[in-house]
């Protein structure tokens, strides 16, 4: 049983993850992008004395790289998030747009916490542990409660995911557009983080044995040491579920952000000529050909024709 949850599940999940991700990306790459369709959020490059918006309306590959990098690392599009509100102004109702940054803040702290937690976990998969991983571990865990270390990212991820989930449940507009596929990932990640926090701070498991199991997986000599607590297998199964469903759920936006035509294309349709990849010679049948075919019969029947057929 522990062999199934300790070896079969992680391998199956990772194979599904990599195969599914390659499948998704190749499937996207096979779809032709006919012409430039970037979302423009600023002034296009035109005359030299008009200031162009380099990242919001990129005209070159460098601009596109900057745009995607800023989007992937800092979530610029969420930073622009606004909230529409009815306010009373000068005695009458008026629609006002407010800068709403909580979504950006929660999303950013959640994603960065997840990345740092992911990197921290590499200490279980590398022996000896690289100094960079030890550094991340040390900086993230420099707080103390009593003698117990406290990881800042552990607190942040719990707060941020809880906020992101509650936002979907509490705000009527967001709940209206939320589907099961929107609720599942935050709940899965919340239970993943909770099981990890429980294991780290409350119900300890034998960490050395956990690392022996992880190193066995990495070196393809899987072995399951005795006496690892059940909480570890719960944690491992949850992370396996996350990896396995990754390519087939909305989580795949990790790869999708780089293949979004509205983001990864420079807005240069007026500077360069783009040939439509769908533009093949179409079979046509104009009226001249029609009359060539039926002109005689039409003329016999007394229908108006352009040429003389009789």
């Amino acid at each position, binding site marked *: 049983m522990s062999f199934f949850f300790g070896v079969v599940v992680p391998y199956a999940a990772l194979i599904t993850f*990599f195969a599914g*991700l*390659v499948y998704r*990306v*190749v499937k996207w*790459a*096979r*779809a*032709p*992008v006919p012409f430039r369709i970037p979302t423009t959020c600023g002034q296009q490059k035109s005359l030299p004395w008009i200031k162009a918006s380099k990242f919001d309306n990129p005209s070159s590959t460098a601009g596109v790289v900057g745009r995607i990098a800023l989007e992937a690392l800092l979530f610029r599009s969420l930073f622009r998030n606004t909230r529409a509100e009815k306010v009373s102004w000068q005695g009458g109702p008026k629609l006002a747009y407010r800068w709403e940054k909580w979504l950006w803040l929660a999303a950013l702290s959640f994603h960065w916490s997840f990345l740092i937690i992911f990197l921290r976990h*590499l*200490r*279980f*998969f*590398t*022996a*000896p*542990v*690289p100094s960079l*991983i*030890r550094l991340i*571990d*040390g900086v993230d865990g420099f707080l103390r409660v*009593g*003698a*117990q270390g406290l990881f800042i990212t552990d607190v942040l991820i719990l707060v941020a995911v809880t906020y992101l989930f509650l936002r979907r449940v509490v705000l009527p507009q967001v709940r209206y557009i939320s589907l099961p596929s929107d609720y599942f990932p935050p709940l899965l990640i919340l239970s993943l983080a909770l099981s990890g926090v429980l294991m780290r701070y409350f119900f*300890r*498991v*034998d*960490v*050395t*044995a956990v*690392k*022996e199991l992880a*190193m066995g997986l*990495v*070196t393809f000599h899987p072995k399951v040491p005795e*006496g690892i*607590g059940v909480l570890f297998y719960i944690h491992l199964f949850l992370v396996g579920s996350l990896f396995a469903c990754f390519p087939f759920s909305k989580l795949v936006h990790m*790869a999708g952000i*780089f*293949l979004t035509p509205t983001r990864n294309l420079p807005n240069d349709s007026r500077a360069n000529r783009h040939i439509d*990849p769908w533009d093949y010679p179409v079979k046509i049948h104009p009226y001249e050909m029609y009359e060539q075919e039926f002109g005689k019969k039409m003329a016999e029947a007394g229908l108006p024709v352009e040429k003389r057929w009789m």
Partner: protein
Amino acid sequence: MYNARPVIIGLAVFIGLTTFPIWRALEKAAPAPEPELDTPAIQQMPEKLCVEATPTMRARHMQLLGDWRAGVVRDGRTVYAGQAGKKYEMSLQKTCLKCHANKDKFCDQCHDYAGVQPDCWTCHIAPGENKP
């Protein structure tokens, strides 16, 4: 496939980075640690018993030490009833390190292996370690 070159390069970089532990394990490998129990103090014990049973100690000795610290520093409790009702003084240096006097062959074995950086030694002094 359109834009095959950047797509394949991107996928290859991603898979190469995420499978980094596998590549690394090919060149560097550390065997599982074997904390050594062979110290004079342990040799002389008639019955080789730690404060708690071995699985408990392996999994949660850090919590035990935290509880001991809180007990001594906050509550003034200094005696711990261990397994089989045996009484121990709650002290890292006077109790734990009396038997486990070999920090680099006992503590450090698992700590280095699992990449744990305990800050015990910022205040406490390991046996045989002269520098403060």
